[in-house]
């Protein structure tokens, strides 16, 4: 789950990382009030969960409260990459001497967290990583020991940080590590970490991604979930513990298992169709979940055919069949459906579906081809 800049920075601050003393506003009036209280120049920043908001005009400098209010009004009316801006952050403007990049993420290959620092902060770090990887210093952190002070010093040395800033850098870096670890983050990033003209270190922008699997122990963070970034159908899917991603094609898919779901999408494409979605009903899905999944698929008016590809392991064919029948009781639809059930309790499932008006298939290739045909037929 992505966290907004202002929430990420609040978390960093709670672990001792210095951040600008700004506040978030949902209206231009609030924004003006905050700017007035802060005094002086401020930055008004769109709080959206996509990159590139600066280029899109989502960050504006304001000399005073009046300008801040105007800037907020403009930004709050924007959509950035399709996402509405609901909140703006008003931070005091700072005079920047240096910009540093500092981030912690999981290195899956090393099976350890990795901390990265670069003197080339403030820009697109992925571009730095691609073009001048030597400018990014990396250090792996043993997950049982945690980040050691010597590692922080090594980073400071490697990015040629002036010694007068070492103590402040230590505080920021250990604070970021605590924020990463205690929040079950998969990414905790400060970009830029600014050294101001007054010689202070300040986390001017912040970003966190939280491990969805760990949200059960972070109810406070879950409460900050911004459902604007998800299509309504995706929200509904998540609430039903399904993974659904809407795509642009015309063949709805319901599959158990992420790998098989992707392979099913791939084979639809291979046979000339376009998948309308990714939908993984997960392991051990019961009838209720299957019914919810079918409702979600059919909400997409582009869908011209539905392909069920269920290979039973932990998921049982009979449960899936019951779910389909349950959903079809509730939803009146003419969309043709191709069903392929294999594996655990597949026969019981096929028996249950025998009387429903469905196209059946044995192999995956057959199922995909029939779904593509059905979709073309129903156009």
């Amino acid at each position, binding site marked *: 789950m992505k966290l907004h800049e202002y929430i990420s920075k609040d978390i960093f601050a709670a672990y001792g990382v210095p951040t600008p003393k700004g506040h978030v506003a949902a209206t231009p009036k609030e924004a003006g009030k905050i700017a007035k209280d802060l005094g002086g120049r401020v930055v008004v920043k769109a709080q959206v969960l996509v990159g590139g908001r600066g280029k899109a005009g989502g960050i504006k400098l304001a000399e005073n409260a009046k300008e801040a209010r105007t800037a907020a009004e403009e930004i709050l009316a924007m959509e950035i990459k399709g996402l509405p801006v609901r909140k703006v952050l008003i931070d005091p403007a700072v005079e920047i001497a240096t910009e540093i990049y500092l981030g912690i993420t999981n290195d899956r290959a090393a099976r350890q967290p990795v901390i990265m620092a670069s003197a080339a902060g403030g820009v697109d770090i992925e571009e730095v990583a691609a073009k001048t990887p030597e400018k990014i210093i990396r250090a792996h952190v043993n997950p049982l020991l945690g980040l050691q002070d010597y590692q922080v010093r090594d980073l400071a040395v490697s990015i040629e940080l002036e010694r007068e800033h070492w103590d402040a850098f230590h505080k920021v870096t250990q604070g970021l590590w605590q924020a990463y670890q205690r929040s079950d983050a998969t990414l905790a990033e400060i970009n830029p970490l600014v050294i101001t003209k007054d010689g202070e270190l300040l986390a001017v922008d912040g970003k966190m991604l939280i491990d969805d699997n*760990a949200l*059960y122990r972070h109810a406070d963070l879950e409460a900050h979930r911004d459902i604007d970034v998800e299509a309504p159908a995706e929200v509904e899917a998540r609430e039903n513990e399904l993974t659904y991603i809407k795509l642009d094609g015309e063949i709805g898919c319901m599959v158990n298992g992420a790998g098989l779901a*992707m*392979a099913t999408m791939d084979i639809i494409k291979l046979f000339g169709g376009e998948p309308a979605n*990714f939908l993984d009903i997960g392991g051990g899905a019961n009838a209720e979940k299957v019914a919810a999944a079918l409702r979600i698929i059919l909400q997409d008016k582009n869908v011209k055919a539905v392909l069920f590809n269920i290979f039973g392991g*932990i998921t049982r064919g009979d449960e899936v069949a019951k779910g389909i029948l349950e959903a079809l009781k509730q939803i009146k639809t003419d969309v043709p459906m191709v069903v392929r059930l294999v594996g655990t309790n597949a026969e019981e499932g096929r028996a249950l579906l025998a009387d429903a008006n469905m196209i059946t298939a044995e192999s995956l290739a057959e199922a995909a081809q029939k779904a593509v045909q059905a979709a073309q037929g129903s156009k």
Partner: protein
Amino acid sequence: MAILANKDTRVVVQGITGREGSFHSQLMLDYGTKVVAGMRPGKGGEWVLDGKVPVFDSVKVAVEATGADTSMIIVPAVAAPDSILEAADAGVRLIICLTEGVPIQDMMRVRAYLDFKQVTLIGPNCPGLLTPSQTKIGFIPGNISMPGNVGVVSRSGTLTYEVLNALKQEGMGCSTCVGIGGDPVKGISFIEVLQMFEDDPLTDQVVMIGEIGGTDEEKAAEYINEKMTKPVVGFIAGKTAPPGKRMGHAGAIVEGGAGTAKDKVEALKKAGVQVADHPEQIPEMLKK
């Protein structure tokens, strides 16, 4: 003999009293797997699965009482890290963790600890292992495969069943099938299983099923190129996945442009691996 587990493997099931735990343990018993013990704290002393399997309060006691050498874990995600550590400390040689949704930082800590231990972990979030006609530990349906000379290793769950089924349709059997799981931080990796197949006299050919995300397939391709003499057929899922979108589990995040299906297919082809366009092509590729 087979790699990792065979008919003599003695399994303790952690979480045997749960709905899925008891259902799959029964299927395993039916298949012939030696499910010698169950473990569920607070249920020690009971007998389950028609009174055939004793339940213990701890893995340690289960191991002592029944000589179990392998643990299968099918518990809620919140309990999985503790269960893995318990099994590791109880002295089993193989742990197969089926549980999905284990937090990644938990797994990083568990992995760091397991590095001390003489134990192999498969998973979490994996379908388990099948050595046809000998033993089945996990979700892989027994009836979709038969004994043979093809070793199968996969990051996916149900996609693996698809492949086993396709092989069986063509009369081809499997030496052992290992589902290593799709989580970003996990136990055994492609390379370790490929190495076992390379050394296994009962395996003549290998199928490797990968998906987008991470760089495990690329690394496996390097290993195949440098070390493997046996032919490998590959398949990569996720060619149509839009970049930057999560496709069901964390393993399927496309990280920073790397780990796309295209990259992986190219790496495998460069290593001399035949790569199938869809799973049902795999049997004919093996026949070549």
